[in-house]
């Protein structure tokens, strides 16, 4: 219960930090993450009130849409840009086919995680190769990608087995989700608080003095 409340509380923090440091967070597609944080908060409040499984299904689709959009905006290489688009089409078809208001759609949520983890690896690969970034951890998007990667890899097995777990034990196992939710929100906060990405010194130094 405490960890669930803590998770709910930490969902407010990235929203607050984004708004407080609005200037630092402009122009990098971080507004998508801001929308994602709002979606998280609203879903948790609504799920607490209605407890309808459809809310989780809708949340899953919207969450996947926002993360795909973030990936699409963040990927620099043109040939990789089509990956989140194709992934989104495949995911929508499967998620809409499985959409029910009866129980938690474990398959669609797991599928979303399976899609999002490679997106994160692709984004990390691009960040690693980007010569404009001096240290990868000085980059806002790096922390956001790490947050998603840890959250979705940490909760993947939980989502896969969610429907096989006995009803009374689900809330116990949901602690794993809350733990990773808190971790994700903390990493979002770090991304929103940190200063704008700095240019590496070897790009700003004059390499070619006039001989």
């Amino acid at each position, binding site marked *: 219960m405490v960890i669930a409340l803590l998770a709910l509380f930490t969902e407010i923090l990235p929203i607050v930090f984004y708004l407080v440091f609005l200037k630092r967070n402009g122009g990098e597609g971080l507004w998508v993450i801001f929308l994602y944080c709002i979606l998280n908060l609203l879903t948790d409040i609504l799920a607490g009130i209605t407890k309808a499984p459809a809310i989780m299904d809708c949340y899953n689709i919207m969450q996947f849409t926002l993360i795909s959009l973030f990936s699409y905006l963040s990927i620099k290489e043109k040939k990789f840009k089509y990956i989140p688009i194709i992934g989104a089409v495949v995911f929508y078809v499967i998620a809409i086919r499985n959409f029910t208001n009866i129980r938690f759609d474990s398959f669609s949520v797991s599928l979303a995680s399976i899609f999002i983890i490679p997106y994160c690896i692709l984004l990390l690969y691009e960040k690693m190769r980007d010569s404009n970034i001096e240290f990868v951890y000085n980059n806002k998007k790096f922390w956001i990608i790490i947050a998603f990667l*840890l959250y979705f890899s940490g909760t*993947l*097995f939980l989502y*896969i087995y969610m429907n*096989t777990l006995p009803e009374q034990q689900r809330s116990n196992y949901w602690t*794993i989700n809350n733990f990773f939710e808190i971790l994700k929100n903390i990493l979002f906060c770090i991304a929103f608080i940190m200063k704008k990405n700095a240019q590496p010194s070897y790009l700003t130094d004059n390499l070619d003095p006039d001989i």
Partner: protein
Amino acid sequence: MIFLEVTNPGNVSIVLFFGTIGMLALTIGLIVFIIFHQRKVIRYQTKLQRMEQDQQKLLLNASIRLQEEERQRIAADLHDDAGPLLATARLYLNENLVNLDKSTQLQSIYNAKQIIDDTIQLIRNISHSLMPPTLKNFGLESAVNDLFQKISGSGSMNASSRFHDYKERLQAENELIIFRVIQELVNNILKHSNASFIHLTQNTSGNKFFIRLHHDGRGITQNDFNKLNKSNVGLGLKNIQSRLKVLHGKIFFEKDMSQTYYKVTIELVKEEDNKLAEQE
């Protein structure tokens, strides 16, 4: 797929626990790998950058030193040769000249004239060494031929040059740079190689312009050139390198296949392409 078939609640807990821990370990491993790999890449780039800066510093120092040496040489030529000549001419034309008899006066004036002619010749030589008039008026081909004829004429070495494709002259400043590089190379060959002949050929291929020097003396290879370029010695070679850098040119030192001759090849991109490279 075996994992997905687990339905026993006890087994589910174990699979869930180890699955989550495993995924987490993989993710953390990946993040740590990325961070360390990037640090390694950055260290490598910084090292490369430092090496390039050191190289540029060496080239800059070499060109400054060479300029200073050139100035000292001109100053020495003027001070040691032109100065005494003019002082002697002045002695012949001193105030006492009017009091001397006519034949002595004529002799003094003749001597002074001789000395002034020598001085004019000396100053012409200095001026020619600064900017060869043949190069300015007739171009690289004539200037190189002239230089090689002079070397051959001295009798110390057999020198010949042949331009195969030089219908269109390069820009005057580029011709001067190439000429200076050739002069420096020929100077090195004369000083260090103990060669009995030098042969220069010029060719073009596509957008490339080649000048190749052959000699049968003691030469250097590309490895020696690179080593000398990085050390504090080899001022002339550094000067060649910095001059060629202006033209985006390359130089290769190698031993002939027959192991009898040394070859030096200067490779330049033709001017239009050169301008494009500079714009980039």
